[in-house]
């Protein structure tokens, strides 16, 4: 385990009280009680076998703070439940760097069972998201070397960038009468892009770029 950990947390130890500004929380392998609420800059680091299980009681991770940098490494997020972003929800004007995540088994009633980005920016790399994704509001989601097994919804003024090695099955865009979402295909691939006939979003980049081979999390 990395030596810059400020706290090592074994399964069964509550994580929330240990989320303090600047902390580097290192989770030991096993199932940890998820349902984190992050309003301060913090790093939450896992590794193989580290599971954040929200137990159906809320989002596995909710980033709500503004002007903070949050790092999430090597975590499996599961059994999160929320209106949006059951696995990971970015609601604050935060910069969230997420690497090596596995997001599966989460639910949401309004879309984005796995991930929802409403504000701020989420950069996702080397990850696999099996649940649906929602990019909405004024949120920005950058994905590289990651795969998306569920539907990816892009709404309002949300921006989804699929960078090198990012692969989404279906991306669905719909605008409102006052603003449009954007899908930027920047080296990444979307097998199918559905753009609403009446309220279309903006698709920037080739919709049929060849699928990236090698690398990535799929």
């Amino acid at each position, binding site marked *: 385990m990395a030596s810059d950990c400020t706290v090592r947390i074994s399964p069964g130890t509550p994580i929330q009280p240990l989320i303090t500004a600047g902390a580097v929380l290192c989770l030991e392998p096993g199932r940890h009680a998820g349902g984190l609420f992050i309003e301060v800059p913090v790093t939450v680091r896992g590794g193989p076998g580290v599971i954040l299980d929200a137990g159906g009681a809320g989002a596995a991770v909710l980033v709500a703070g503004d002007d903070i940098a949050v790092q999430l490494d090597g975590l499996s997020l599961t059994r999160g439940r929320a*209106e949006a972003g059951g696995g990971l929800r970015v609601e604050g004007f935060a910069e969230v760097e997420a690497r090596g995540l596995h997001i599966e088994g989460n639910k949401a009633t309004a879309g984005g069972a796995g991930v929802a980005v409403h504000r701020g920016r989420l950069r996702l790399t080397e990850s696999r998201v099996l649940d649906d994704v929602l990019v909405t509001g004024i949120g920005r989601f950058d994905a590289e070397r990651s795969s998306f097994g569920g539907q990816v919804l892009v709404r309002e003024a949300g921006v989804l960038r699929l960078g090198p090695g990012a692969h989404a099955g279906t991306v669905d865009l719909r605008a409102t009468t006052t603003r449009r979402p954007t899908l930027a295909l920047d080296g990444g691939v979307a097998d199918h892009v559905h753009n609403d006939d009446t309220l279309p979003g903006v698709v920037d980049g080739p919709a049929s770029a060849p699928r990236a081979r090698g690398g990535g999390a799929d």
Partner: protein
Amino acid sequence: MQARDRSRTPSSPEQAPAAPAQAGRKSGLGNSFLAGRLSAQPTFEDGTPVPSQRGPEVTDSFDPRHRPASVKVGQMGALVGRGSEVLLRTGKTTRSRELARVPDGSPAEVVTVDRTRIQVRVRVGQKNVTGWADAADFTTQPGVSRDEDNKALADDYAYSYFGGDHRPTAPKGTDTAQGALGDCFFIASMAAIANASPQAIKDAIQFDARSGKYTVRFYEETQSGMKPVYITVDSYLPTEKGNRKDPAYAGDPGGPLWPAIMEKAYAQWKGGYDVIGEGGTGDTAMAEISGVRSRSRNPASMRPDEVLPYFQKAQKDGLAIYAGVRNTLKMAAQSPLSGSGSGPYRGTLQQAHSWNEVEPGTLSVTDKGGKVGSARDDGEEGDKSAAILGRDVQSGSIDYQSHQVQVQYRSGRSPANAKDLVVEFEYHGMLNSQKTIIGNHAYAFERVVNGNMLQFYNPWGSYQPSPITAQEFLQYFDSLSTNAVPKNKTAG
């Protein structure tokens, strides 16, 4: 999100209300409030002028002479004529054969435009028909919801006219009554905002008596803050065809209509009733109504001893408070199957409430005697039935609506006893029938009662929950947000 069951005994069809009188529309200026007005410029209650609406293709006058220029292919709307029915023809000329007569106010989608004639798609019974009508009969309206049993069809409602000034005078959360649309997030948000600041609701809605139209002010978040958005809607609302005074969505017959007007404006803004019926989040909706960003908490991160102080403080600070209930809950294990040998083992799952159904993909059948391996259902959301699969299962099925389960094990494989087969699953519906807590539903918080209990408001206007404890809040709710809605009059 949960729409309310609005089963009603059909009444005899009523004559659709006549189109409003033509008086006061001499200028035919469409939707511009500012140019050429003889009376004072319309303003919101706080004195902010209503901005000029330069809506491109929509005409807002009921004067039919102004409708033809505003119709475009793909537009959603309603056929609003001058009587109880609108005639559709097989061809574009008035000499063409009659195709159908549809009730006045029938939702329609424009398929073709040819000068003063339009071809529209309209639901007639259990199918869509495409016929020609007078463009003057078309009004732009938000698309209605889709028929759950056949998405190719719009729900069988009709737009009806609700004349008069229905602005709120003393709005409160209990004015809201969600209808047959899955937008509980929005209705509960309206209720929460109204509870915290009736003035905010009053500020949001302006009425122009001459045109009979409302302009609703929402807010949209940008990188530089909240920006006002003005949406103008007329006085037509979707209603039951059998009772043209019964709003299909928000609102009850004879009740306050401001929620229905605000809902219609929201639907028009977002792209249709069908769009907002897909659901949304309360934190966003509250911000869109109030102009102030909401603040969320994650119930999963809260300790029980934090819950009551949170609500007490929020109530003391006068915040609008919104909470969402989780979709499913785990049912207690049961052994309802009977059979012998390799089976089949059959049984009906016990549910705690008649509304409850198994959540597809969550059912397991486990042999506590260890003789046969576990089995699981392979259903997905929306399925009415599914297979039950397992290493030792030859065949199995579950009907999610009748709760019936059947499992046939492979030859030579069998549990020692049928009662060893333990069935577990998650269910959706009424998560707690004693407290009346409905799953996958949004609530507006009302107040702390008895010093330590939380009272919520169901935006249906019925099935109100009993006060719940902090522990129960954490058990049932997975979303929570507050909004510091302004109390005093706000500038646009």
